[in-house]
């Protein structure tokens, strides 16, 4: 069970988040919506423990994975090593299998710089799922991809989520993406940003969109 209870987060004197609390059951996917700049990425960094300077508590599992807005790969290591170095328990066979699942089986020995942005994103996705995370955090992983590639990425992400079954926290400003991946949504708005009340959080069924 993941429990997030953030009382306040400020950068200097500017308070950016206030009273953001939610729970996440294993296997559940929560989409966080909100305008850009509202503090969605900040929230994710607090949940992931990258930023620990805030008031409140976050209960998170050990095994986590993060898919950043940028692929954030090691450009000086091959695609295969990008998986193996991050997951020391992963065998080479296992890593190649992870690459195959995202359609990069023939790119194992290439450096990230030799891959297209879409391929780099898929490699980041493979890296996230290869560790069998209990909590998966996705920070707008499909931005700046063309429509077709983005749709493929969404489908791929959904398949991997069904297979691995992590609790997922997912930031987007595309409602359509949220509809396809999330069980429920949570909207942030205001300054400092807080959970928008009285909004009916629609409950989606992932299977519904096929």
């Amino acid at each position, binding site marked *: 069970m993941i429990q997030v209870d953030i009382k306040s987060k400020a950068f200097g004197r500017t308070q950016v988040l206030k009273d953001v609390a939610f729970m996440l059951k294993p296997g559940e996917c929560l989409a966080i919506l909100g305008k850009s700049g509202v503090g969605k990425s900040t929230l994710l960094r607090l949940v992931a423990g990258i930023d620990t300077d805030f008031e409140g508590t976050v209960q998170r599992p050990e095994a986590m994975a993060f898919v950043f807005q940028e692929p954030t790969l090691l450009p000086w290591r091959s695609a295969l*090593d990008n998986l193996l170095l991050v997951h020391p328990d992963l065998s080479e066979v296992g890593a190649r299998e992870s690459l195959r699942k995202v359609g990069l089986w023939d790119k194992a020995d290439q450096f990230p710089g030799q891959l297209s942005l879409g391929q780099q994103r898929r490699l980041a996705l493979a890296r996230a799922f290869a560790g069998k995370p209990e909590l998966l955090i996705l920070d707008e992983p499909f931005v700046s991809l063309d429509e077709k590639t983005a749709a493929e990425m969404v489908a791929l992400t959904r398949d991997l989520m069904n297979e691995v079954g992590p609790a997922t926290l997912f930031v987007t400003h595309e409602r359509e993406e949220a509809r396809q991946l999330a069980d429920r949504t949570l909207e942030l708005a205001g300054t400092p940003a807080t959970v928008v009340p009285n909004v009916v959080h629609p409950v989606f069924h992932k299977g519904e969109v096929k």
Partner: protein
Amino acid sequence: MARSVIRTVSLLGFVLFWTIAAWINGDPSVLPSPADLVRPFLSELASGELLYHLGVTVARVIAAFCLAMSIGTVLGLLMGTNPELDQWLDPWLVVFLNLPALVLIVLCYLWIGLNETAAIMAVTLNKIPNVTTIIREGARALDPDLKAMAQVFRMRRPVYLRHVILPQLAPFITGAARSGMAVIWKIVLVVEFLGRSNGIGFQIHLYFQLFDVAMVLVYSLSFIGFMLVVEWLLLQPAERRVRAWRLA
């Protein structure tokens, strides 16, 4: 044209320029031509003198180089990633950066004595601030996103240092090593000149007192030759390997 051809032609051009200058000057005791150096070079080589002093100097250069690079890298990394420590240590760095090599050498000899420890220490202390400054720049430019990534995925410390930090610092480390090598061997020569009884610097001191220009040139050129070999056989290939991912 191939890299090695240009290199050879360029070096031959220098030898030609020198020969012409020596020919115009006309006095081998002031400026001997390259040909005039062959005989003294061979006799020093045959007597074992040249190799002995070359070996001693190389050992000092390696010792000081390794010490300065490792201490300087650690300091630079700490200062570059820790702004508070940086504020505390920065004034020290500025002091040592601007302390003339000669002053450090003389002080080390006065305080520690005319021995090997003082010699190596003087050279090392001279070079550390340079390495630190260069590595600090690299450490300041480390990618925060990769750090966050390593943190979330709980990469182990040694793996993180080797595969995330080191590759980002690599251009700065090779830069520091390059300029370090060149500076260190010059300082080693001064250290030997002032307070050692062997090494290239000591030999140059000896032949300086005898006004033997040819021997001064033989000893200094031998070492330059040695450094060129190190540069071509070690430093440049190492740099190419480190940069392979950029060119792929």
